[in-house]
């Protein structure tokens, strides 16, 4: 069950028209590609995607799930927006509530285990390995955790565990953390227990219907077997403009923190078929990713360039992320910026500066010269 309904309000104009999981990333992908590819690469063939905020692009992008080999007759991708019943309808009021409202879907699929995922994180994980840990521990719930720097631990949901990895205590944003193992918001539940717990939680008037805030504490209090699954590879929650920018830049360089080219678990995407990128006679591209369909007549340096981007003559693009269809006209300068889909920096204009915060330009927006 993939939670993809969030707005991602801290990404500002980048999510003014699309849900966060549908935001362009890495020159070719949308953020949700990473989790969907993990599912496909882990052999999971039934994925319910819970959508809510501005879902058009996300729904269109998911399609039948074919791009991630998830178009199956039994299972495959199911898009699960809020819906109405005989007693009315309601928006998803929390991570747990979103799942509760789709217990019908869970009962229809009748799985043994349920994996809860977020559609806005970047990482490669073999969920099968996590499930093996869950089974080996005979656990009721397994929470994926990763060590974070101690000084940052108070920003996360922290798990205090014994030597076997069994969770003794869960504290949301502790002032004085006893552990640095942070929850990644990735859970494997034994299905029956999850459904039972969610039904009870729905009846609780004091619950905020959140996995971290309500469900985990309740299961701990009930003495259930909660275990951690330790993850040590690359993981990013691209919540802010700064972290989004950083995560894109981490794809660059000779030894990138996250290697898009790793062969064993390819990141799949629903991409269009465009001609190869054209680098003009006076164009140059250095330390960058450039997708198909681009025309680069100017200078691109240390940037991530998505499909169908145009960079005009004598234009400079540096330390920036350009979404599909963005245009940097002749002589324009774009530095330390994120340009959303089809946005444009007009001829001779300047957008962004090296020693300031990363600037963002929304879908279809235009920066004129002198602005």
């Amino acid at each position: 069950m993939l939670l993809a309904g969030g707005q991602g309000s801290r990404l500002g104009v980048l999510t003014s028209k699309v849900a966060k999981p549908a935001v362009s990333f890495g020159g070719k992908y949308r953020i949700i590609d990473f989790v969907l590819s993990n599912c496909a690469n882990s052999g999971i063939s039934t994925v319910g995607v819970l959508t809510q905020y501005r879902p058009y692009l996300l729904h269109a992008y998911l399609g039948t799930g074919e791009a991630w080999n998830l178009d199956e007759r039994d299972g495959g991708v199911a898009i699960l927006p809020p819906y109405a019943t005989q007693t009315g309808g309601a928006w998803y009021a929390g991570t747990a509530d979103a799942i509760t409202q789709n217990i019908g879907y869970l009962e229809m699929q009748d799985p043994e285990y349920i994996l809860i995922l977020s559609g806005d994180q970047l990482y490669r994980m073999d969920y099968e390995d996590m499930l093996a840990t869950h089974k080996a521990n005979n656990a009721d719930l397994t929470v994926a955790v990763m060590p974070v720097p101690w000084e940052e631990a108070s920003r996360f949901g922290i798990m205090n565990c014994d030597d076997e990895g069994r969770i003794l205590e869960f504290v949301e944003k502790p002032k004085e953390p006893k552990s640095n193992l942070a929850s990644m918001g990735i859970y494997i539940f034994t299905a029956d227990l999850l459904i039972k717990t969610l039904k009870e939680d729905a009846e609780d008037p004091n619950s905020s219907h959140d996995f971290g805030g309500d469900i985990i504490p309740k299961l701990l209090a009930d003495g259930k077997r909660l275990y951690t699954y330790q993850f040590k590879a690359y993981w990013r929650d691209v919540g802010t403009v700064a972290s989004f920018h950083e995560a894109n830049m981490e794809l660059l360089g000779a030894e990138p923190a996250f290697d898009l080219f790793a062969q064993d678990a390819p990141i799949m995407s629903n991409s269009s078929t465009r001609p190869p990128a054209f680098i003009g006679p006076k164009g140059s591209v250095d330390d960058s990713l450039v997708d198909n369909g681009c025309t680069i007549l100017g200078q691109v340096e240390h940037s991530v360039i998505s499909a169908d981007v145009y960079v005009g003559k004598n234009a400079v693009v540096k330390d920036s992320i350009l979404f599909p269809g963005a245009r940097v006209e002749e002589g324009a300068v774009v530095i330390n910026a994120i340009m959303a889909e089809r946005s444009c920096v007009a001829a001779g204009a300047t957008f962004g500066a090296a020693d300031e915060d990363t600037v963002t330009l929304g879908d279809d927006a235009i920066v004129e010269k002198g602005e």
Partner: protein
Amino acid sequence: MPKAIGLITANYTTASKDDVFSGRPVASMPYLGRYRLVDFALSNMVNAGIRSVGMIMPTNYRSLVDHVGSGKDWDLDRKNGGLFIMPGTAFGTSRTGARFLIRDLVQNKEFFIKNKEKYVVLSTANFVCNVDVKALIAKHEESGASISVLTKKAKCDGNIDVVTFDVEDGRVKGMKQGAKFGETVFLDYAVVERELLLELLDAFAAIDHLDLFEALNSELGRFRVMAIDFEGYMKPIFDKDSYFTANMDLLDPDVLTELADSRPVKTKAHDNPPAKYEPGAKVSNALVASGSRIYGAVQSSVLGRSVIVEEGASVRHSILMQGVVVKAGAQIENAIIDKNNVIPAGTELRGTDGDILYVKKN
């Protein structure tokens, strides 16, 4: 509602002895970094709303079937219609020249009987062009011709593989093999009413070893075959030199835009990351497909998917097909390097402008 069905004959070779074409049908020849030649014929038909396309297969069809699959990438995986993979006659594969061999069409007559649309659009796979087939059908209807053929005035001499027409006031009066400067070249796109095509197949049954247009050559008084001029970019690909030029032509952004953007050219989708240019890469005047990694220098070249150009390596005025690895310090100039070749470190491979070096598929 589509008015026409399509037929692509993908089962013939060229007269060229260049080994660029050996071992693979012309239709599945990689082109411009990420396409196969058949993509143009398929896309042109699909862009006109055609949703039933028959494809007559060569005997060595593996690469072609691998590429087109169920036709999904061209929206041709339909409940009704869609992509029809059809056998060619064994005879058809060994013959050059004939591109719409009557025997091939007769053998697959079922396709023309079952699909009830009014017209059939015929095409081969080795002309690179972005054709508005919808307009072609409209012009055909308007003129009341028996058959309409798409043509263009030849700009160079000596292509023995293409067919030329003798045209008077738009009407085809005769045809021959081979083209000289200024002659009217047949672009291998034709429109004919389905019922008429079926009649012709019956009438020509006794001479089914001929090409449909060869058979029509003596019947041009009876049937009005009208030429429709094509104004856009086109390139027949029949030998190494025309293949090389047809790639290099696309380094002109205007040509690229016309060919790839005027109507979408669809192809098999791949899960490649964007191309990655490492610190210090020097790339200019080049087409680079996704999945490539460039550490060295690339100039005036076309790079296919997942090509690697290592540090200190240089590639000039060349075509590298998908999966080619150019090891550190190697130098390539005026060459076509076929799929998956690894060019060892320090190697120099040089052709000349007039004689492009070809390194065959590994």
